Structure formats: C-alpha cells, structure tokens
C-alpha cells in the first residue's frame, strides 16, 4: 500500500492515456495521432470559456461583497457615533446624578438640622412633651375662706413669672402646659389657662435645676412679690422638688394671620 501522497503523484497522469497507447502499439498504429483532432481544441476552448466565466463571476461577486462590506462599515460608523453620543449623555447624566446626590445629602442634613432645631424650639415653647427634674408648687385658697384669700389670676401669673425667672424651662398648671400664647386670666369665678378652666388647688409644675430653683424663686422679683401676696392673703402654698416629672406638650396652633418673616439668606456656601 502506497502512501496517499505518492499514490496521487504517481497517478497524476490519467492511466487511460497509457492504456490506449498500449492498445495502439498492439495494433501497429502510432502511439498518438497528434493534436489535429478538433474535439481537443473544442474542449480547450470550453475550458477557457469556463475559466473566464468563473473569473468574471467571482470578480462580480467580490464587487457586490465589497459594496455590502462598505455599507456595513458605514452602518458601524453611524452606530459608533450614536453610541459615543449616548455614552457622553450617560456621563453627563451620571455627573448630574452625583451632583444631585450630593445636594440631596446636603438637603437631608439641613432637614435633619431643622427638625432638630424645631424639636428644641418645641421644647422651649411648650409644644413638645418634656420630662426631667423640677419643682412642684401646690397653691390653694386661704383656708379661712375669706374672699380676699381666693387665688386670683394675677397671683397665679406672678407665681409662674417667678418660676420663669428662677430658670424654669417648662411650666404646666394643673397639667396645662404654658406656651408663649397661653394666658392666665380669670373668667367669672374660675381661673382659665388659655381656655381651660382650673379648679383649686392649683398645681404648678416647673422643670428646672432643683438645686437652685427654689432659692432663685425666692430671690426673683416676681417670686418675692408672690411670697408677699401669699403672706398678705394667707394662701396655702407648698413647694418641693421632684426628680422625675413629665409635662405634656400642646398641639401646635395653626397660624392664620401671622406668617414667617424669612430673613435674608446668608451665604453659607451651600449649593443653590
């Protein structure tokens, strides 16, 4: 068995030529009758024709293929441009998003600060419930039942003013928290805190420093005025410290006439 390559090489000439030549030799004719045969010429012409057709067809196909390729390249270019534009838009948007995120963080911080401030203000102004140590004052009409011994709004207001002066941070009368718009006044026979009528005995709770409040109260002008009134009219009066008091908050009133005056914005370096 011959290797494939050698076989192909050795049999590269059609064996038929040799067979025919051998038969001719047997018959005594010449090995070849030359190239005068017209069939061979026709065959060669057909070969030439086929070859040219194949070449022409291939080059035509190549032209069409090249055209398609150019079209694709153009499309790629267009798509690439559009992609670049979109990517640049994306980068812009991303930048914007980063900026907005930073601003959101700033705003959130500001909001938290404001909320904190609002809460602090609510504590001070009486719209948030508070707890802490303080003094509890119990005040009642004079036990002798005389008309002068009745506690009037003025007396109660003086007491409260004395407590404020003594450093009270939150005050409630009979569980009614006092705010900046809470008045104490007499309507008919009863003392009203805002619109709530109170009945004696009056319990005034004030949150503040228990170590100093009682002494400060006695030294304050309103406090000493009240103590003078008490001595003059014989009110029942009792003041003592309490380590743990809870004062309720009032619901925030809705403002109708008043509106907030916004101060000119200070430039604090925040993004606008």
């Amino acid at each position, binding site marked *: 068995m011959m290797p494939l*390559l050698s076989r192909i090489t050795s049999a590269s000439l059609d064996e038929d030529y040799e067979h025919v030549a051998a038969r001719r030799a047997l018959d005594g004719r010449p090995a070849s009758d*030359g190239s005068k045969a017209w069939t061979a010429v026709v065959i060669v012409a057909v070969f030439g024709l086929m070859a040219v057709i194949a070449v022409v067809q291939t080059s035509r196909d190549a032209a069409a293929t090249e055209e398609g390729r150019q079209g694709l390249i153009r499309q790629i270019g267009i798509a690439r441009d559009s992609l670049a534009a979109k990517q640049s838009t994306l980068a812009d948007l991303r930048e914007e998003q980063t900026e907005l995120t930073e601003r959101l963080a700033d705003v959130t911080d500001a909001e938290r600060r404001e909320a904190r401030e609002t809460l602090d203000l609510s504590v001070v102004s009486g719209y948030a419930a508070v707890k802490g140590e303080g003094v509890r004052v119990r005040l009642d009409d004079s036990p002798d039942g005389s008309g002068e011994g009745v506690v009037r709004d003025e007396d109660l207001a003086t007491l409260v003013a004395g407590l404020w002066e003594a450093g009270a941070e939150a005050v409630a009368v009979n569980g009614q928290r006092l705010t900046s718009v809470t008045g104490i006044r007499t309507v008919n026979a009863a003392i009203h805190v805002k619109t709530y009528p109170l009945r004696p005995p009056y319990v005034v709770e004030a949150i503040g420093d228990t170590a100093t409040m009682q002494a400060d109260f006695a030294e304050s002008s309103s406090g000493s005025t009240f103590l003078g009134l008490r001595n003059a009219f014989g009110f029942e009066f009792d003041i003592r410290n309490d380590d743990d008091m809870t004062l309720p908050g009032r619901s925030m009133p809705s403002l109708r006439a008043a509106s907030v005056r916004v101060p000119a914005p200070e430039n604090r370096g925040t993004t606008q």
Partner: protein
Amino acid sequence: MIAALGLLAGIVLGLVLQPDVPLWLEPYLPIAVVAALDAVFGGLRAFLDGIFDDKVFVVSFTSNVVIAAAIVFLGDKLGVGGQLTTAVIVVLGIRIFSNVAAIRRHVFHA
C-alpha cells in the same frame, strides 16, 4: 498550437459574452474549473509524452468536471461542502503540480 488558439478563442468568447451563471450552478463552477485545469494539464503532458488521445482527453475532461461538481453538490447536501471542496482542491492541486513538473521536464529537457 491549434489547442492554444482554441483556448484563446474560448477566453475571448467568455470576455465578449460575459454570460450570467445560473445561481444553482455558481458554487460548482470554480471547482469544475480546477478539475478542468487538471484534465488540460494531463492532456498536455500526454501530448508531450507522445501518447495523447483526443477521446481519452474528452472523457477525462468531462468526467473530471462532472465528478468534481457532483462531489461538491453531495457535500453541500450533507453539510460538509467546504471540507469536501478542500479535499478535491488538494488532490487536484497535487496532480496539477506533478503534471506541470513532468511538462517542465519535457520542455526544458531536464
């Protein structure tokens, strides 16, 4: 000499007419041309060997073209057209080279 004129005539005819190849025939034309090239070089070598016979030439040319086209057709149907084409090209290429080498020996008497 006459054969060379025949080749020239075929080429000129093809260039002048530029016939369109039917689409179904298009894949088989190149391989048929290579097979025909093999037959032509075989015939030329036989001629130089002094054993040329036109009948053998016609038969070998026709059968080469038909068989090459048939192999590629069958390969296409079986889904191995590309590989079979390669195989045919390789075998025909080797034959063409070895025939051309024999022709060269005749021409240059080397």
